[in-house]
């Protein structure tokens, strides 16, 4: 549970900032998805965009947590509480 929050919460904060900056600069109706213009309405594009950013940031947090394990945790996974 703790690890899950450590992944999801910082990525949520950063995704919010990225979302605001990205869509301030880029108009959702000017986006292309595999070569064809995005036809969703703006709220849908914003929402999908937010979750995409969240997912990407979460992947980064997940990698951080993954590399943060100590040698002891890797050598003796069974002793981990």
């Amino acid at each position, binding site marked *: 549970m703790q690890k899950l929050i450590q992944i999801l919460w910082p990525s949520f904060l950063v995704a919010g900032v990225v979302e605001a900056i990205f869509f301030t600069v880029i*108009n959702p109706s000017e986006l292309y998805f595999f070569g064809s213009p995005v036809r969703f309405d703006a709220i849908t594009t914003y929402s999908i965009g937010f979750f995409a950013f969240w997912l990407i940031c979460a992947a980064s947090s997940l990698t951080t947590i993954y590399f943060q394990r100590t040698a002891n945790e890797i050598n003796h996974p069974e002793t981990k509480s």
Partner: protein
Amino acid sequence: MNSTAPSTQPVTPPPPPEQDSLYAVRQKVYVRAVTGLFANWRWALVWITQILFYGLPWLSWNGRQAVLLHLVERKFYIFGWVFWPQDVFFLAILLIISAYSLFFFTAIAGRLWCGYACPQTVYTEIFMWVEQKIEGDRNKRMKLDKSPMSPRKFAIKAAKYGSWAAISIWTGFTFVSYFSPLSDLLRSVQTLSFGPWELFWILFYGGFTYLFAGVMREQVCKYMCPYARFQSVMFDPDTLVITYDEARGEPRGARKKGVEPKSVSKGDCVDCGICVQVCPTGIDIRDGLQYECIGCAACIDACDQVMDKMEYPRGLIRYSTENAIKKGWGTKEVVAHVFRPRTLIYGFVLVVLSLAFVWGLASREPLRVDVMRDRSSLAREVEGGMIENVYELQIMNMTEQPRTFVFGARGIDGIAIEGDKRLQVDAAGMRSVTLKVRAPYDPDKVGATEVFFEVYPEDKPSLKLSEKTTFLFPR
């Protein structure tokens, strides 16, 4: 070398400090209600911020919602202003002003934001008030939670969770109404046909309000808030923080009312523990400044009441500074130290930025012009030895009245725009027009020559904007 170190170093590292303190192992904090000066301030802030938050979407201005950050139209309506994505500069300045205000107030008196104005504090305050009204005071709540499930307990809990859910949904609805017009949302309520995402975000925001203010409370401040982690860099020995006067209070201990502390060789602290009971984060302020302390001053109110009862002077727990406690300063010296280089610099930057912001708003021109040369059609020769270039002229009308704009070109002798030189643009609208511009061929100017498009509203020619572009003469 290491002669002082103990000779028997443990071979295995000691067990890690308890790792599961987040969320899992947590002692529920039963916060005792408190009244007094600072509680009144907190409630005043609850009222001010929430009347603003819940009320603003219902205000009208010029026949539209007064404050609407219209994401679909990509326009922010704030009373008389209409902001476009091109105005992101103002948002950036506003964010910097907010950051500096935070630095400024934190340097002066610690976590004022956390204690009085943060939404986490405000909603927790509201939710705790509901809890208090439905479940009763601290002792009743603890007894209720210990008691086995019964129809009475179920009814009480259901009433509490139901009220919380109602507040949360209303909060989520209000939040979404800042981004999606309230009139549309109200229509959706009547017909029960929300857009899927609008409904989602109402529930998302409402759900997190419920979770943060009802369930997680102090844990949000302790584990999730980024500000709590770096606030200490803004503190210095002259920052006013909530302080227990250890020299005056210790040694603590119980005694009868009105007993002179010296006569029983004790300090002023009667060790009643009420300062701990009222603390929303469940800490003991008598242990000194701790990062968990959100500066709500509930313990000050609580302790002052006890001091009044004991007929001791107030302020055993009070706003004071590290230096004041160490050097025994009075109020006058503490106030004098509010003005120090750090706060003066923060204050100066704050004033300069605010003036720049106001000046920027006041001198913002309600018109924006963009000219692009049409790249698909190159310069071509037309009848009469003229050269023709094609442009796309885009005019944004940032006022709330439809306006007619007049435009012209200059920069080359004999340059002229073909066709109509006027364009009507809707209120807060944007229109573009394709322009054919002709100029007499001039062999000296082969290549690109600078030209200007001039645009002004018909009803206000003084507001003239010039936009630079290039005119091509072919070889």
